[in-house]
């Protein structure tokens, strides 16, 4: 079995999850704490990447990130490489497509905290940033777990967007999901079963471990 796709998949899922943690958390936090009237609009926008079929979203991303687009052109100039058909492109696409899975559960978890902990933190001279890092984040541990699991697994399983934007280049953009898909399409069912079983089993073990650890260190509020 070719290990390239497995490795690439894990890398992509990890990079996407970490990236979305960095990008999505502030957005979710803003959503949960803001009193701005724009909130419902931003909230809706963060859910939108889900409504388009992955392949179609991939198509539009292809247009938006392609070398003829301003973004893609800028990237090409900057790095000398096209954004599409590269691992970077995959990451960008995955970030966009998986955004809702990070933002929505996090916003929900942050909102559930109410004002209490934030006022308590401020009363102890903690800046909003410190309150976020040292209070809101640990108190929302369960929300983070949900967001991370959804984002990570979804990135593993997704391939419509990835295939479209990535171009299935071995070692660069060819992830496991595409490999399994290929096996199914070409009637190599035995290989498909083996790869699927491996993926499911691996994911299952990781998830059980994660949830078991989460249980041992409960992030309970109250």
């Amino acid at each position, binding site marked *: 079995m070719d290990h390239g796709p497995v490795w690439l998949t894990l890398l992509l899922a990890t990079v996407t999850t970490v990236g979305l943690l960095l990008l999505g958390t502030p957005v979710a936090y803003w959503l949960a704490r803001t009193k701005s009237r724009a909130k419902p609009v931003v909230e809706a926008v963060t859910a939108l990447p889900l409504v388009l079929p992955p392949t179609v979203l991939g198509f539009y991303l292809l247009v938006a990130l392609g070398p003829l687009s301003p973004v893609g052109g800028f990237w090409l100039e900057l790095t000398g490489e096209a954004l599409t058909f590269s691992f970077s492109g995959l990451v960008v696409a995955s970030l966009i497509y998986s955004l809702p899975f990070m933002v929505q559960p996090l916003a929900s978890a942050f909102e559930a905290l109410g004002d*209490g*902990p934030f*006022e*308590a*933190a*401020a*009363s*102890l*001279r*903690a*800046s*909003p940033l*410190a*309150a976020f890092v*040292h*209070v809101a984040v*640990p*108190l929302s*541990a369960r929300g983070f777990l949900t967001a991370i699991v959804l984002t990570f697994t979804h990135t593993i399983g997704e391939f419509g967007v990835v295939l479209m934007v990535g171009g299935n280049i071995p070692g660069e953009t060819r992830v496991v999901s595409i490999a399994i898909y290929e096996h199914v399409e070409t009637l190599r069912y035995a290989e498909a079963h083996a790869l699927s079983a491996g993926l499911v089993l691996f994911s299952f073990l990781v998830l059980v471990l994660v949830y078991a650890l989460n249980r041992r260190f409960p*992030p*309970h*509020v*109250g």
Partner: protein
Amino acid sequence: MSVDPCRPASSLSDFAALAMDFRLQRADFGLVVRVEVPLEGVTAVFGASGSGKTTLLRAVAGFERPDQGRVVAGTDTWFDSATHTDVPPHRRAAGFMFQDTRLFPHLDVAGNLAFAARRARADGGGFDRADVVTALDLEPLLRRRTGSLSGGERQRVALGRTLLTRPRILLLDEPLAALERERKADILPYLEGALSRFGIPTLYVSHDIDEVARFADRMLLLSAGRVQAHGPTPQMLERLDLQPAMGRFEAGVLLAGRVLRRDPRLHLTWVDVGGDEIAVPEITGAGGAEVRLRIRARDVALATCRPEGISIRNVLPGTLLELTPGDAPGFVEALVQLHSVRIRSRLTLAAVEELGLAPGMSVFALVKTVSFGV
């Protein structure tokens, strides 16, 4: 000293005082405050449940935004609707202790304390961790998750946590309400001592006048969102018109005295109060030390002639100044002039009639030594 709402705003001095001059409306409840509190010592905030004590403290801390007005601490303007100033709570350096404690459930007790200690003002007064932990007896709790603490334990931790921020001003919202008397009696002297030692001005909300009368320099009485009265504790305690608001068993006087001498065998201390000697239970304080004695009107009896063979230690000659009806039928409040201070006594109408008490009469005020809480 009641507050005159027509006093011009410019007279609010901005030196070493907390000036609160704002209005704030929340549905049916409106808080209208125009008062200035010196930024030193303890100001007790009293008032019935729902009178706005918590809301007042929250506005000072920055958790409630007044609709209009100003909050100025010393030379710092914390809030001013006119200039759209609104210093965020964490920059006000106001240590707020919440009525519902709000401990962080993801940290253990030590973690909660560390959260505060790490952010303590560098130039703040000297509360240090070991000191606070000892005084509040937090040692056995340090490794405990906050979720499993008892009500009183939570309050002790919350108080310790707030102290450790070394705030510029302390805002304590019923800090000891969940503690039993014994525990309060342990903690209060520490708090009192520490506050005066480190000079941290404090607004102290309490239901229990006894709890704070001994160490509050001033009282601020709220009633339905308005400042009903405000002034030094002794005057406030003397004012009869405030008794309904302060609780009818709480009326009395607060007298400033000086330790005269002690009797180590009898465990008594004599205090000079403006020329009168009053025996109280032993006080740990050097001779000449200033002390405050709170004498509740209900603990003072009167006699027309000096009683003999009686266990009451303090028999203080004086002149009956005035008799006013008490707040409950059948009760009379008497004001007695001693050498230089006045003392208040609560009597039954029956006693007044039987003894033929009338203003101008010479009387003896009887005060049991044991009525002074240690």
